[in-house]
């Protein structure tokens, strides 16, 4: 009887650690994306969008408009790669300045930097996977 209880106990222990281990895999990936993304942000985005994502007056839009980022989630990778020259509306304000293209960024780096942006500055969208980036990049116009 004692042996049965002990083995049950260990079985539950191993099972629970396996379950939580599986969960951690995703969260480790997210954390790696986010951490790498914050470094990429510093190099490629920060000089215009600022370290707090606040942008610059009416010249450069902030990255804190969660609604815009959710509604345009599929276009975000295209915005970074090809830049923007249309006017866009962020937080009720129109921005018309050119956004330079960052054509040299690889999909994995785009995924990381977008994960960072969509989970910082008040945004909370979870991971932006590299597969999602690759899929969305095929529909840039």
């Amino acid at each position, binding site marked *: 009887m004692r042996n049965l209880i002990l083995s049950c106990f260990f079985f539950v222990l191993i099972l629970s650690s396996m379950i939580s281990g599986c969960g951690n895999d995703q969260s480790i990936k997210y954390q790696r994306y986010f951490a790498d993304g914050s470094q990429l942000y510093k190099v490629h985005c920060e*000089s*215009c969008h*600022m370290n707090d994502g606040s942008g*610059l*007056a*009416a*010249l*450069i839009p902030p990255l804190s408009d969660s609604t815009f980022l959710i509604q345009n989630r599929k276009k975000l990778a295209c915005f970074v790669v090809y830049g923007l020259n249309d006017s866009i509306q962020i937080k009720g304000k129109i921005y018309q*300045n*050119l956004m*330079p293209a960052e054509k040299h960024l690889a999909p994995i780096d785009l995924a990381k930097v977008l994960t960072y942006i969509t989970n910082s500055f008040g945004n909370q969208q979870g991971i932006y996977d590299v597969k999602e980036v690759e899929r969305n990049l095929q529909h840039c116009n």
Partner: protein
Amino acid sequence: MRFFLPVFCLFLALFACQSETKKLPILGNKSAEIKIINGKEVVDSVYQTIPNFSFIDQDSVIINNDSLKNSIYIADFFFTSCPSICPIMSKHMLSIYEKYKGNQEVKFLSHSIDPNHDSIPVLKKYATKLGVSGNQWHFLWGNKDVVYQLAKEGYMSFAAQDSTVPGGITHSGYFLLIDKQRRIRGAYDGTDKTQVDQLTKDIEVLLAEYPQQK
């Protein structure tokens, strides 16, 4: 009574320290000039000054040394389509501008180093979008060679065309603090928050040199 003298000396030393006012250094090249004052030869040091210039600002107003003779000013070099260090410089400059808005003793000059693209209307639009109005912050348009020359020889800065960098023009991101005698009194990295904070402190020190106009 035995202690009186050392204690007195200590007090004297303390007060001597307090009465000493801080002054900013005078930067740039210095040369010695021999002048004759009252029939005697006197050696006087001559400091580097900003050479004469005349440019047009975002409101099509001519800005030259005369327009700035009653103010200290902060100068920098930028261009409106600059993707690298300019936005953060503009943001820092804007924070100083907001602090001294309305104080005509403090002015701001931003020299465009891309006159082909940055026409007067483009500069005006940039200023407006930055939230700058009035006549304190001038965004200046001038001949490219003249501006590059002024950057190098006047402000000890540099600006040059370079097709390898984003935006096509490379330049130093310094803010230069200039006094009313056109001398350089400070140079600060306009991309660095701590140095910009130091500049804000130094503006106060420099303004204190001109008490009669306050």
